[in-house]
């Protein structure tokens, strides 16, 4: 009944990269940063060109049929026995936790379960599989971390982001009040229940600003888009950045030699 223990694999030669549609279409720099961080760790990154979306928007809206139809062709995109890394707790959670539910009792069950077992959130993978060592090359900055609810509760990686940021000497990590509370994104929730979502993201933004963060570093683009989008529209002094972009930017964007 307690969550199953996560057994990390040994550091592999290759990984598959599942970008997620949000990263692909809106925040490709986060995807590129992730790929390059992995490569810097000596891992070859395979990017299946036929990948689209994990299916979560339809699934969490109750439209399992449509979700399944989106996922099925993608179950065959990762034929080698390499880990699949995802730069999002939420899409990672969909693949790792919900694919087995979605496909239980279907002809794709076995495939979905195998894929789920190979799926890792990117920062978790960098820290606990690659044992990455980061060398900060940036100027002093105050940031806060927002770990998405799925990263925290489905992927169990609440400690990962702060530990990675802790490796960066010039980065001061401040903690906002109620750090573990949801930002109010919730995928389609933000448009189905816009007023509640607004109340939540307002509180979240104010807590981050009050903590003195210039930038909120997030595990998930969804939360980041929500918080930073709210801050921008309401002229609050807060920027958002995906944690992977941030790590890549801080560590000199290359082999630690500080490329311009």
């Amino acid at each position, binding site marked *: *009944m*307690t969550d199953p223990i996560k057994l990390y694999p040994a550091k592999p030669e290759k990984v598959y990269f599942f*970008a997620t*549609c949000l990263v*692909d*279409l*809106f*925040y*490709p*720099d986060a*995807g*590129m940063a992730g790929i390059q961080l992995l490569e810097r760790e000596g891992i070859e990154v395979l*990017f299946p*060109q036929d990948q*689209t979306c994990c299916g979560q*928007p*339809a699934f*969490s*809206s*109750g*439209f*399992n*049929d*449509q979700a399944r*139809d*989106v996922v*099925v*062709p993608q179950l065959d995109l990762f034929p080698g026995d390499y880990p699949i890394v995802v730069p999002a707790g939420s899409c990672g959670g969909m693949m790792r936790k919900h694919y087995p*539910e979605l496909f239980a*009792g*279907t002809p794709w069950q076995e495939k979905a379960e195998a894929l789920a077992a190979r799926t890792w959130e990117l920062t978790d993978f960098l820290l606990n599989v690659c044992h990455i060592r980061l060398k900060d090359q940036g100027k002093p900055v105050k940031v806060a971390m927002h770990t998405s*609810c*799925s990263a*925290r*509760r489905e992927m169990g990686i609440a400690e990962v982001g702060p530990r990675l940021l802790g490796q960066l000497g010039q980065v001061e990590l401040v903690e906002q009040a109620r750090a573990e*509370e*949801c930002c*109010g*994104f*919730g*995928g*389609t*929730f933000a*448009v*189905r*229940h*816009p*007023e*509640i*979502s*607004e*109340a*939540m993201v307002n509180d979240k933004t104010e807590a981050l600003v009050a903590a003195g963060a210039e930038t909120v570093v997030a595990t998930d683009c969804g939360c980041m*888009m*929500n918080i930073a*989008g*709210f801050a*921008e*529209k*309401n002229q609050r002094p807060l920027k958002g950045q995906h944690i992977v972009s941030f790590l890549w930017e801080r560590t000199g964007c290359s082999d630690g030699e500080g490329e311009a």
Partner: protein
Amino acid sequence: MTQTSTLSDVREFHPRVRTALDNPQIRSNFRNAMDGLMGKRQKAFDGWDLDKLRDLGAAVRLRALARLPELLERLEANCIRQGIQVHWAETGEQACEIIGDICKARQARTVIKGKSMVSEEMELNHYLEEQGIEALESDLGEYIVQLAEETPSHIIMPAIHKNTTEISDLMHERTGTERSHDVDYLTASARQQLREKFMTADVGISGVNFAVAQTGTLCLVENEGNGRLTTTVPPCHIAVTGIEKVVEHLEDISPLLALLTRSATGQHITTYVNMISGPRRDAELDGPEAVHLVLVDSGRSSVYQDPELMDTLRCIRCGACMNHCPVYTRVGGHAYGTTYPGPIGKILMPHLLGLDSTRDLPSASTLCGACGEVCPVRIPIPTLLQRLRKESVDGDRLRPSVVRGHGSKRHWKEVLAWNAFRWIFASPGRYRLLGMLMTRFRAFTPSRVGAWSRYRSAPKPAARTLHQLVNERAKGGGR
């Protein structure tokens, strides 16, 4: 204005949410109260292996539910052996009638009530009033809510939506109590008025926290002593409870109590733990001469039919899920329009009222998982919400929906939208085309995209998709 869970009322979810969000008093009352409760809970479990205890709590509840029909029969037999008269009610209306008949047979004029959410569910007070029987709530929170002619906004703290000033004003208006910010004074005033009623009431009605099949014992926890008075002073005690509250052994109560009081109010134990095992015996001086147990189904056995949804019945009514829910904290209990608000309400009420009248509840969650994380008996609340979302739109042809009123949220516009999503995202070619169009025409991206941009700036598509960037890089286009 009396708030009841009528169909039209439950459906008005969005307007009620707006009203609640626009009320700064409601917002701060709930935020402060929930912050306090979360802190107390955390402290109370300090030093406990909470994961293990929750495993135990879940196992105890699961075992009881696995043999529910048999345990209920044993409970009935052992209660009868102890002199407790047992009644079965299929619906809330039937339960009301049973209780009304018991009262009438005793020619009861006044009833004093301990806290009972099942009685709220079946609107017992309303029924008794119609029968000319006065029913007075004796739990302080319920007393306040009754004075205000409202319904509870929280299952453990019914009047949590009110602050001291509001309560003081209310008591002044309704009972003539002098206005005061002294909580002790207000409590003493209510106590005085209630004490008289305890002494003169013909019948006491209470809920039940756990009903022990093996011994026929009814366990009732409370902090004000009103439960003890309700169940011992009037000549007749009627306990009313849902059929799911049964546990097998007396020992089962121990882990459940440890979880319940800490999860609910952060207490190691409540001030009163009542173990009721029948009416006054011959040589005894105290206690009622008659004890009745009314076991209410009211939709529960239909939940029981489904192995996944059955998990809903594990609930021990601690309220921790609502205390930790970011949505409940913002909108408060009344916004839900249901007897049980918050996460547990969202997964329970569709069974009691039908998904047609509760169709906005399953989606009113970010699926953040805070509720599931604190549930003392490990009800997978987010998973069940997901299940009900699917049922509300009949979204899975492989797994037919079973909940009453399923499919009522299915709207052709939304179906069309998800079909379009499928048409694009199930095809790598079409998806890449979408990426190409979005990047190429990003200058024309609308700055207003529905409800999203009412409160946030709209995201802008990237100049190049990651697909394109990776491709260019592979072709030696540098990085």
